[in-house]
């Protein structure tokens, strides 16, 4: 009796082990597939957190390599896109990719309607606001974004391009929600100032 009991127990362990491993493998495959399905969205945000396409591609690869290694730290049912972006922004900070394009003074902020006033006035009273916006080129916008200092740009890109809530952005960047709001506010104004400058340069 005792003997067969022992044998049973010994037999049961590898079976449980195999079951556990199979479940884990299934969970891991699912995690990897879910993460890969988000890669387009992750890249779109990464592209403007980094200063160039090359930096962004490297950053996304490092992010996925780390995510696949530490997948067990992800809590299923929570926001996987935010979890990936948290890895990515940490890597971006750690790897010293935060240098500005060129050393520059903190840009002056514009009044909130500054850009509109500037574009509308130079456009000779264009009445259609959509047309006014279209006076900015895609290059203007991409380079204006990259001119926003990183602390402000991180928040701006996560919220305005990545559609993250203030709370998600706060968690991703590990800063208080109030800081997200104030950086977002300043970041948007800095962006507008840069855009107004680009528009003015084209006039002349």
């Amino acid at each position, binding site marked *: 009796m005792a003997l067969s009991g022992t044998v049973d127990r010994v037999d049961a362990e590898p079976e449980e082990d195999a079951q556990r491993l199979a479940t884990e*493998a299934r969970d*891991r*495959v699912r995690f*990897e597939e879910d993460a*890969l399905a988000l*890669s*387009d969205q992750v*890249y*779109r945000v990464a*592209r*403007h957190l980094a200063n160039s*396409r090359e930096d962004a*591609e490297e950053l*996304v*690869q490092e992010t*996925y*390599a780390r995510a*696949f*290694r530490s997948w067990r730290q992800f809590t299923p049912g929570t926001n996987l896109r935010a979890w990936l972006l948290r890895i990515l922004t940490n890597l971006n900070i750690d790897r010293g990719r935060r240098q500005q394009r060129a050393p520059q003074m903190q840009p002056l902020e514009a009044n*909130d*309607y500054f*850009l*509109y006033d500037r*574009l*509308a006035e130079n456009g000779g009273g264009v009445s259609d*606001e*959509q047309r*006014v*916006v*279209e006076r*900015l080129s*895609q290059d203007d*916008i*991409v380079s204006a*974004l990259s001119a926003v200092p990183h602390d402000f740009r991180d928040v701006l890109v996560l*919220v*305005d*391009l990545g559609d993250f809530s*203030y709370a998600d952005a706060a968690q991703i960047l590990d800063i208080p929600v109030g800081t997200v709001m104030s950086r977002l*506010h300043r970041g*948007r104004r800095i*962006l507008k100032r840069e855009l107004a400058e680009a528009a003015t340069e084209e006039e002349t």
Partner: protein
Amino acid sequence: MKDPCAHCEEMMQPYLDHVLTDEEMAAAEAHLAGCEPCQRRYRFEESLRIYVRKAATEEMRPELREKLSALRIPLE
């Protein structure tokens, strides 16, 4: 009493972020409905957001997609 257009300017970004309370939102909409200059600015701010997002969207290259798939850890 504060200048209503200055107040509207303050509310504009939070309004576009959908973070105003119902009460604040109703007040902002009431002002916008009767103020042509603020309406124009609102349309501009809204268009700008959409336009910036569109202009900033750069799709990832297929090579990167393949590299990411290759990073998956093979099953033993």
